[in-house]
């Protein structure tokens, strides 16, 4: 198992989240600053799980109005029509337009919900101290992180449409309240991804490696004490 490798924390090393430099905190300090890019360093993100949970719950809450409220209000000579995301999918679904409908379905409904579910899975497994499928979980995290910014595609499309189609009084398109919540879902999931510390995935392995298979809270505490002990062993700055 690759997870058997010791973590940087066990060696008293901190990795910079910005430039990736691995460094040892200055003597006498628990955490320091990156000697290269001056980013604040920490062994683990502060309150990572709590913050991730908070953002994720916020995203999940916003996900409901995002799907219930209309995202686009189209006003034509025939009258105003408000469509939710799902209505848009249904509207686009036709023998020729089904690929577009599928794109909207995947980008606007499946991906956000998949992101939320994936993050929840990661959080729960980390909290339970699971040691299985670590490589898969880290890959899942990377994928969620990567997709993050692209989730905004929908919001962009809708706002662009609204900005471009203003042929008053013939036709106009206006964003609906659902769009605000949809954007909130995307933002909150991105924040949740940001708040999640993937290094936590490895902690359970390293904490379990020395002892038996079962989780040992006391062991975990001693792990946390480790960096303090390791403080004297300084890593030379690059």
């Amino acid at each position: 198992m690759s997870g058997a490798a010791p973590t940087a924390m066990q060696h008293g090393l901190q990795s910079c989240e910005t430039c990736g430099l691995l460094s040892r905190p200055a003597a006498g300090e628990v955490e320091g600053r990156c000697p290269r890019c001056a980013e604040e360093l920490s062994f683990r993100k502060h309150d990572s799980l709590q913050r991730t949970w908070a953002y994720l719950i916020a995203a999940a809450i916003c996900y409901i109005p995002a799907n219930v409220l209309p995202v686009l209000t189209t006003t034509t000579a025939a009258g105003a029509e408000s469509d939710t995301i799902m209505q848009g999918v249904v509207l686009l679904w036709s023998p020729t337009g089904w690929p577009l409908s599928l794109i909207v379905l995947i980008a606007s409904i499946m991906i956000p919900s998949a992101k939320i579910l994936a993050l929840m899975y990661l959080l729960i497994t980390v909290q339970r101290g699971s040691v299985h499928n670590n490589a898969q979980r880290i890959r899942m995290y990377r994928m969620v992180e990567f997709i993050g910014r692209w989730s905004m595609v929908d919001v962009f499309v809708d706002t662009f449409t609204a900005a471009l189609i203003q042929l008053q009084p013939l036709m106009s398109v206006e964003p609906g309240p659902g769009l605000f919540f949809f954007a909130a879902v995307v933002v909150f999931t991105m924040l949740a991804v940001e708040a999640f510390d993937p290094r936590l995935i490895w902690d359970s392995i390293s904490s379990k490696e020395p002892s038996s298979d079962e989780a040992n809270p006391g062991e975990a505490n001693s792990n946390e004490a480790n960096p303090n002990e390791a403080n004297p062993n300084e890593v030379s700055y690059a």
Partner: protein
Amino acid sequence: MPKKRTRFSLVWVIPVLAAIVGAWVAVTRILSEGPKITIVFRTAEGLEAGKTKIHYNGVDVGTLTAIQLSDDHKHVITTAQMAPKTEGFLVNDTKFWVVKPRISGANVTGLGTLISGAYIGMEIGASKEDRRDFVALETQPVITGEVPGRFFVLKTPDLGSIDTGTPIYFRRLQVGQVASYNMDQNGKALTVKAFVRAPYDQYVNGDTRFWHASGIDLSLTASGLSVQTQSALSILIGGIAFETAPSVMVQPPAEEHTAFTLYGNRAEAFNPPPRNPQTYQLIFTDSVRGLVAGAPVEFRGIRVGEVADITAQIDLKTFKFSVPVTIRLDPQRLGVKIFELGPTLNLESMRRKLIDSLVSHGVRAQLRTGNLLTGSAFVSLDFFPGAPPATVDWSQQPVQLPTIRGTLEATEETVENIIAKIDKMPLKEIGDELRKAIADLDLTLTSARGALDSAHSTLDNANTLVAPNSLQLEKLDQTLDEVSRAAQSLRVLADFLERHPEALLRGKKGEAK
């Protein structure tokens, strides 16, 4: 670091905020949501769930949310989400219908639906009772409840060019529209629902007559040529006109849904075929040329019935030709106020009594020419005091009424008689005699002229005798002077003698002195 980890993070404010915002949105959505109703349609043609709107006076008050077939597959049950605060609209007699484009002569409605598709129209009822399930109207009502006025029912055997929306005219002013029409159960007549706007509905009363005012009504009858039209629009698309017959009594306005007969034209409306016709037969012996079925039967110029049938019969024994004419009479039109006699009286016997007394007073049927131009004839009932007495035989069927020869026929006969008499005169002999007499007269005149000539010369002589400056005249003058003087002397003598008659004996006294 362990301390930090256990601390309650401020980040939890975010999901709490999100939850509050989400809950607030949800609450406002639920609060702003109007009632849900179901409307049953016969067909869902043109309707689309999530798209079809419910309009009231052009305002969007709801949207169809679902369309499904009823359990018996005969109807379409639609569910509609109404706008907030529409609860008050959804009462017992609120009506719904599908608005589709409709072009009916005078008006074009629902044009907008050509672009936007059908929508559901709505009329708010007056009831106070709430209702959530409705059955839609089959057709869009022409008149919505907001327009004050009244509906009347018109019965007609023929729809003509009447359609929903056909205008109704009163004194050539459009005062209403045909709301709907439908076939009677027996299929023999049609019932037209006509709407007359206020305040014109008050002019409809028991004496009001409705008639088809479609096109130009040109008729050439015994009463002459008549042309009747309403507005130019009605000529094109048809229409209904009504007018109230001037009546002695002021009639109260008719109740809503009062039934009226829709007549074919104005003349028919005011001269309707008899309502309870009594059939009689008239046997005419003179020519009935110009008499047609439907020709009026008039009593002293008042229309009391019409000719129903004209046949001909010939008696082979006597070779007498006669024309039995069947007429339908409306005795009530004769002005007999039967209702004044009381309900217990036998109407039939009253009718017989009336006819009997009329006949005994010399009422006879006669053929008359109504229009010299067209030669159309009519049957006239009139008093002929000099007519030979007649009675009505009530045992016959149909009852025969006594007739009298037509005036024209009688005149023709008289003229014929005169001509025959003239024909019989010995005109040739009279001529010959006359010619001889004239020849004699000629001779007489010639001799008369000779006598006149002699007289002329005699007078001439006489003229020369008395010509002025003639010797004879002068002498005559002198002679006359002498005579005058002699006469004067004689008068003096006479006067003297009168005063002194003794002078005859004694001579002149004065002279004697």
